[in-house]
C-alpha cells in the first residue's frame, strides 16, 4: 500500500540540473543581450544558429545512443553549451561556424565521452578551440560595434547576407585589444605606446569594443557571475583564483618591463577573462569537486591564460588554458580530497590526544 524502495532521505532540496542550468543562462542573458544590441542582426542570427545546432546535435546523439531525448534535452545543458560557444564566436561569423562548432562540442567532446557529466573537456571550449585552430581567419574577424538601428548597422537583409552568405564587409574588421597589442608588439612597438590605441578600460568594462559575441562587457559578465554566486550555483573559489593569478602575473611582469608586458588590469578586463573565470572554468563537469581543488584549478587557468596570451601564437588564451586544466582535473581531484572526519590526510585514524584529566 505504501511504496517502499530506497534508503533515505525522504526530503530533498528543491533543485535540479535543469534549474541550475537555467539560472546560468539567466546570468548570461544581460551580457549577451547587450552584445546582440551592439553587433546587431548578424550576431542574433549566429547566436540562434549555434544554439539550435547544439540542441539538434544533442538530440541526434541521444537518438543514436537510444537514450531518452526529451528528458535529457530538457536539462538545458546543450543550450548552455551552445550559448557559451556562441558567446565566444566573432559576432559576424558565418552560420556554418556555429553548426560545425556544435558538432565538435556536442558530438565529439560530450557524447563521445558518454554524455552529460562524463566529458573531460568543456564542450563549448572544445568547439571554440577547434574552430579557432581550423579557421583562424574567420575566427579572428572581429568587428567594431554597430548598434542595432544605428546609422551604419547592417539591416535585416544585409545581416542575412553576412551570416548566411558569408559576405563580411571588408572595411568593418577591427582588432581585439589583446590581438592589437600583440600585433603591435611584434612590429617593435612597445606596449606602452600601443596601449594608447586600444579602447580605454572603461569602454572595455562596459563592452563597447570589438570582441566576441557575448563577452565584450566585462561588467555585465561580472554581474552575471556575482548573481550565480549569490544563487550559490558557483562558489568564489574558481573565479577569484583565475582572475587573481592572471592579475598577479600581469602586474608582476608589467612592473618588471612595461614596454613588453601589458598590465594586470588590462589582462583582467580584456578578452574572455570574466566569461572564462565565471562561466567556463566553473563548469561543474570539467572542474574539480573540492574547494581546494578548485583553487588549484583556477590558479592554473589564470597562469596558463597569461602565458598563452603573452608568449604563444594566439592573442587570447582563456579557452586553451581552461582545456589544459580540464585535463588535469582528475589528478587535482585525486590530490585535493577533503580530509575524512576522524582521519588524517593520509587516511589513518587520528591519534588520540592525551587527556589532561
Amino acid at each position, binding site marked *: *500500500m*505504501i*511504496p*517502499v*524502495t*530506497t*534508503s*533515505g*532521505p*525522504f*526530503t*530533498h*532540496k*528543491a*533543485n*535540479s*540540473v535543469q*534549474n*541550475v542550468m537555467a539560472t546560468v543562462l539567466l546570468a548570461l542573458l544581460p551580457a549577451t543581450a547587450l552584445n546582440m544590441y551592439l553587433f546587431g542582426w548578424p550576431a542574433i542570427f549566429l547566436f540562434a544558429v549555434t544554439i539550435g545546432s547544439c540542441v539538434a546535435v544533442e538530440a541526434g546523439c541521444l537518438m543514436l545512443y537510444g537514450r531518452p531525448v526529451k*528528458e*535529457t534535452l530538457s*536539462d538545458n*545543458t546543450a543550450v548552455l553549451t551552445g550559448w557559451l560557444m556562441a558567446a565566444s564566436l566573432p559576432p559576424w561569423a558565418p552560420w556554418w561556424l556555429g553548426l560545425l562548432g556544435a558538432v565538435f562540442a556536442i558530438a565529439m567532446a560530450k557524447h563521445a565521452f558518454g*554524455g*552529460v*557529466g*562524463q566529458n573531460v573537456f568543456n564542450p563549448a571550449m572544445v568547439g571554440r578551440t577547434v574552430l579557432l585552430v581550423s579557421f583562424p581567419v574567420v575566427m579572428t574577424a572581429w568587428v567594431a560595434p554597430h548598434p542595432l538601428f544605428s546609422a551604419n548597422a547592417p539591416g535585416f537583409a544585409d545581416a542575412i547576407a553576412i551570416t548566411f552568405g558569408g559576405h563580411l564587409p571588408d572595411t568593418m574588421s577591427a582588432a581585439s585589444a589583446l590581438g592589437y597589442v600583440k600585433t603591435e608588439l611584434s612590429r617593435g612597438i612597445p606596449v606602452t605606446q600601443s596601449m594608447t590605441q586600444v579602447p580605454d578600460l572603461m569602454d572595455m568594462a562596459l563592452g563597447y569594443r570589438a570582441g566576441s559575441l557575448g563577452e565584450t562587457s566585462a561588467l555585465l559578465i561580472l554581474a552575471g557571475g556575482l548573481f550565480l554566486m549569490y544563487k550559490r550555483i558557483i*562558489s568564489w573559489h574558481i573565479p577569484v583564483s583565475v582572475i587573481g593569478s592572471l592579475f598577479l602575473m600581469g602586474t608582476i611582469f608589467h612592473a618588471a618591463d612595461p614596454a613588453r608586458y601589458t598590465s594586470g588590469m588590462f589582462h583582467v578586463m580584456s578578452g574572455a577573462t570574466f566569461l572564462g573565470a565565471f562561466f567556463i572554468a566553473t563548469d*561543474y*563537469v*570539467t*572542474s*574539480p*569537486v*573540492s*574547494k581546494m581543488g*578548485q583553487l588549484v584549478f583556477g590558479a592554473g587557468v589564470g597562469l596558463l591564460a597569461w602565458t598563452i596570451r603573452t608568449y604563444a601564437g594566439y592573442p587570447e588564451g582563456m579557452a586553451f588554458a581552461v582545456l589544459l586544466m580540464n585535463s588535469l582535473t582528475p589528478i587535482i*581531484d585525486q590530490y585535493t*580530497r*577533503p*580530509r*575524512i*572526519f*576522524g*582521519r588524517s590526510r593520509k*587516511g589513518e*585514524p*587520528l*591519534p*588520540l*590526544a592525551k*587527556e589532561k*584529566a
Partner: protein
Amino acid sequence: MKLFPVRGGIHPDYRKEQTSEKAIVAMPLPAALYIPLQQHIGAPAEALVQAGDVVKKGQKIGRNQGAVSATQHAPTSGRIASVTEVPAPHPSGLPTLTIVIEPDGKDEWAELPAPIADPFAADMQTINARVAESGIVGMGGAAFPSAIKLNLGTQKKLHTLLLNGAECEPFLTCDDRVMREHADEVIDGARIMAHALGVPNIVIGIEDNKPQAADIMRKAASAFANIQIAVVPVQYPMGSEKHLVQAITGKETPARMLTADLGIVVHNVATARAVHHAVRFGRPLIARVVTVSGGALREPRNVEVAIGTKISDLVEFCGGFAQRPERVVNGGPMMGQPLPSLDAPVVKGTSGILALTAEEISDRPTSACIRCGTCVTICPCGLSPVEMSSFIRKDNLEVAAKLGVMDCISCGSCSWVCPSHIPLVHYFNYAKGMLNAQTRDQRKNERIKTLVEARTIRIEKAAEAKKAALAAKKPAAAAAPAAPATTTEEKANA
C-alpha cells in the same frame, strides 16, 4: 559557551512548526499491543510469557540475552494473546517474534522494583543494573542498550556526559517537547547518569531553533553548577554524536573510535528521562513520546504512546490521513526508514512517524551526475560522495572502501542536496552492507581455517600418540582404544 565549527552540513526545510507548539498528549490504550522481542541493537530478548498468561503493567515479559540486549516489559495490564511473528518497523517488513497483549483496561501496575532512594549515594553497579533491568535503550533512534553505554566509565577515562537535545532532523519535535515539559526529569536523569558514569560535567546540546527548550532547560539546570547548556547552530546533522562533540569541545573523534575515547559519553534527552523514571520510581521503559507529523496527516501532534501501539492506531489517533501519503517514515525524514506497513508497532527507538506528501519529499527522477561537487562541500564526514558513488555503481567496492565509504554516517545530506537526485546514501548503504558481509565471510573463513588447522594438528598428534603407543605396546592391543578417542574429539569440533 564557546563552540567550534563543524565541517559541511545542510539546512533542510525543518517544518517543525507543525508540532513544536503542540503539548504532549497521552494516547489511550489501543485494543492490542505488539511488543517485538527485538527493538534494539543486539540480540533479541527471550520471551518470559506465553499465550494466555496474564500480565501486569511494567511486568518483565522478555529477558535480555547476551552482552548486548535489552529486556521488555508489559506496557499495561492484560492477557497475552499470543507470541507470534508480526512485521517489524523495518524497511524489510520482515516479521519478528512479537508478544501480543490484549489490555484489560485496568492498567494495573505490577510490583515494581523499589525506587533508589538516593541515587547519588548508590554505587554505579546499582544504577546500571536498574537501567538494564528497566529495558532502557537509546531513544534518539539508534536504540542501543543504555546500560552498556553507562558502563563505559569502568573501561574509559571519562569526564563529560553530553546530553543530545540537538534534534536536528526536520519535523521531529518530541525531544523539544520533552525538554520543555519535563525539564526537571531530564536534568535529574542526566545527573543520575553522570553519577553512574562517574563524570563531573554535564553538557546539554540544544540546536538554536529551540530557544524555549534551551531557556527552560537552563532554568532547570541553574541549581547545578556542573550542568551547562550549549546552544549549537542549526546545521544538519548536528545531532550526530561525533559532530555534536566536535561542535561543543572542538575535538574530533578518531575514526573507528567512540566519543568515549575522548572522555565523553552522549545520551539522548529522552533516555535521561527514562533513566529518571527507572531510578526514582522503578518504572521500566514502557512508553515514549513520538512526533506524529507530515503534511498528509490531519492532526500532527506529539503523542506519549505505549510501546507496542500499532502505527495505524497512532495515525488514527492523530485524525488519520488527510491525503494519501507519498511515503510513511519511521524516524526523521533524513535518516529515518520507510515503513513497509502501518501494521508495525511503535518501538522504543521510534522518535517520529511521518506521513509525507510528495511536495515534502520533493523527489525527482535521477539524472546524470554533473559533478557539481556540492556533496563534497557539504559532507560532514569529509568524504567525496561523487567519487564513491561512481565506483560503487561500477561495483568497485574496494576503491569505494579506500575512499572511506565505511566512514559514512548515512546522514543523507549528499542525497538531499544532489541536483541530479542520485540516491547516494542508498549506494553507500549497499556498499557498507556488502563490505561488512565480505569482512564477516573473511572472518568466518579464517575461523574455519584455524579450526581445520587445529584439527589437523590434533589428528596428527593423535596419530603420533597412537604410533608411540603402538611402539610401546603390542600392535594388536593398542589400536582399539585409540580410534574411538579420535572420533569423539572430531565430533565435538564438527
